[in-house]
């Protein structure tokens, strides 16, 4: 295999998949960090976002890119709503109950998608897209846009967390919720804000996965494991860690097909997850351990 083949067949798809995982893993890591539990409905939130975009494309007749902001808004609202309806009342009880509730929400979101759109694979646009060639490297326009948008969203979130009042409040709550509350941070607003960001990013992850592959009702659930592996690899609660972790998991998955049968691609995320938990549970960038 030449270097160019390696780039074309493994690095490019790995970066695209990695950017998608990164978008998902940031949501996972934010919930882990701020709300302090593993949100098992995250993948199905991504599925919902992807299919909302499909609905907008079908009924409003716009292109998929115009549908993306709508999908992000809807998923943000759904995430906030799920928190209010199903998670909020459990906050005074052991947090693991919220994890159970999120498993139920995962099932509910997916069955809603299945009722609305059926279970057959679908896509935003019909027909094959031919890749463009730059110096022998074949990439499709949508792949470049996926990576650029993912990095743009991560940079925007990073700036929001670093420089704005509410971003700082979110970080404060992640570091020490009691101290944040004492310092006058309105935790209700921060909670809602976190869920809004998480929902919007999950929808973006689902949208890009659907754009680059196809839309299936199980797509999000199957993305859950790599997203958690990425979040834990990067360090729980660390946004830049989730980005790094997502890229690593994506690249490893796409290069694993060289020595593993392709159907076991998703098993590599599991191996990364267990290896990190066994060797360095804080992750590469020293995050939290619950």
């Amino acid at each position: 295999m030449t270097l160019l083949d390696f780039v074309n067949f493994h690095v490019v798809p790995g970066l695209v998949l990695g950017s998608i995982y990164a978008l998902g893993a940031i949501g996972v890591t934010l919930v882990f960090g701020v709300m302090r539990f593993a949100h098992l409905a995250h993948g199905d939130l991504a599925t919902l976002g992807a299919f909302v975009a499909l609905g907008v494309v079908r009924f409003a007749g716009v292109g998929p890119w115009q549908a993306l902001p709508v999908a992000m808004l809807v998923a943000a609202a759904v995430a906030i709503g799920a928190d209010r309806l199903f998670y909020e009342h459990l906050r005074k009880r052991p947090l693991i109950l919220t994890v159970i509730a999120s498993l139920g929400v995962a099932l509910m979101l997916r069955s809603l998608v299945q009722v609305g759109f059926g279970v057959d694979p679908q896509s935003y646009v019909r027909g094959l897209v031919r890749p463009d060639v730059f110096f022998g490297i074949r990439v499709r326009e949508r792949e470049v846009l996926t990576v650029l948008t993912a990095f743009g969203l991560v940079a925007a979130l990073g700036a929001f967390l670093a420089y704005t009042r509410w971003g700082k409040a979110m970080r404060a709550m992640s570091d020490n919720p009691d101290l944040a509350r004492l310092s006058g941070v309105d935790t209700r607003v921060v909670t809602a804000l976190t869920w809004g960001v998480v929902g919007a990013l999950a929808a973006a992850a689902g949208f890009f996965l659907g754009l680059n592959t196809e839309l299936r009702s199980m797509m999000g659930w199957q993305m859950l494991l790599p997203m958690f592996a990425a979040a834990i690899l990067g360090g729980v609660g660390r946004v830049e860690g989730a980005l790094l972790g997502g890229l690593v998991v994506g690249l490893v998955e796409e290069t694993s097909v060289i020595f593993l049968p392709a159907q076991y691609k998703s098993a590599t995320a599991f191996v990364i997850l267990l290896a990190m938990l066994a060797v360095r549970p804080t992750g590469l960038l020293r995050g939290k351990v619950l």
Partner: protein
Amino acid sequence: MEWIGVATYVSQLAIVVGIYAVVALGLNVQWGFTGLFNAGIAGFFAVGAYGSAILTSAASATRIGGFGLPVWTGWIAAMVLAAVIAWPIGKICLRFRSDYLAIATIGVAEIIRLVARSESWLTGAAAGIANLPRPFAGRGGSPQAALNSNLAFLAIVIAVLVAVYVAIEALRRAPWGRMMRAIRDNEIAARAMGKNIERRRLEAFMVGAALMGLGGALFAHFNRFITPESIDPMMATFIVWIMLILGGSGNNRGAILGAAVVWTIWSASEFLTNQLPLEYAIQAKYLRVFVIGLALQLVLRFRPEGLLPEQAAELRRDAR
């Protein structure tokens, strides 16, 4: 419908309830006693089903196994195999909060599903493993024979369930059970008393996994075949969770009651939606899944202790 058809249907329902009750008791050891979150029940269930199927089925040219061993050896092997798979997962994840165990068990279940689907030398891939022996299956044919066969299998399932119940109840009352509750309710205090928390949790995780494997084996031999499609990864896991939470986590009788209530309602709703015209029937199927997810939220909100709460009075007597 003739009475014999109804009786066959009811006996089938009862068998499935019994099988789920065994699995729910397994989850009760993990979650109810110990507070461990297993989100990969379907995986351990499948390991038991396939493990027993490989050992007891007739020889086949296309895959290994087909050892034709007696059924009971398959069931014991199913328990051992599920516990062995649980061991490394527990070893790595039980040091942390149960969130990590939840994610890791989802991963295990996913990998087991992939293996079942793609390794035809082991599991027969999509075709699965057929013609499994079923005790007292008889020659079949007449409705009466089908009913008799069901009743005989039901007797076996009830015997297994009673044995499991007695064993788990003995565990719960034993010092071991008290220690598990202590670890669940106050880990730091239990650690200060010198309890080896990781080890105790690992024991509970493996015992629970073994029971899930046993349930899978019972299921495979009842249906007489096992394919990757016969175990829906999410539903099989989730329905056991709702059985235990609704029935009452920590209470063994609650786990059995939950299995009976949830499976009866689930089957009745299936019976209703099957009456619908075909174009709605498929949507109705997913709507039922939505409702069961909603039911979990309602139980968590309005009756978190379940129908039969954990017996607190007895705990107080223990403490004295």
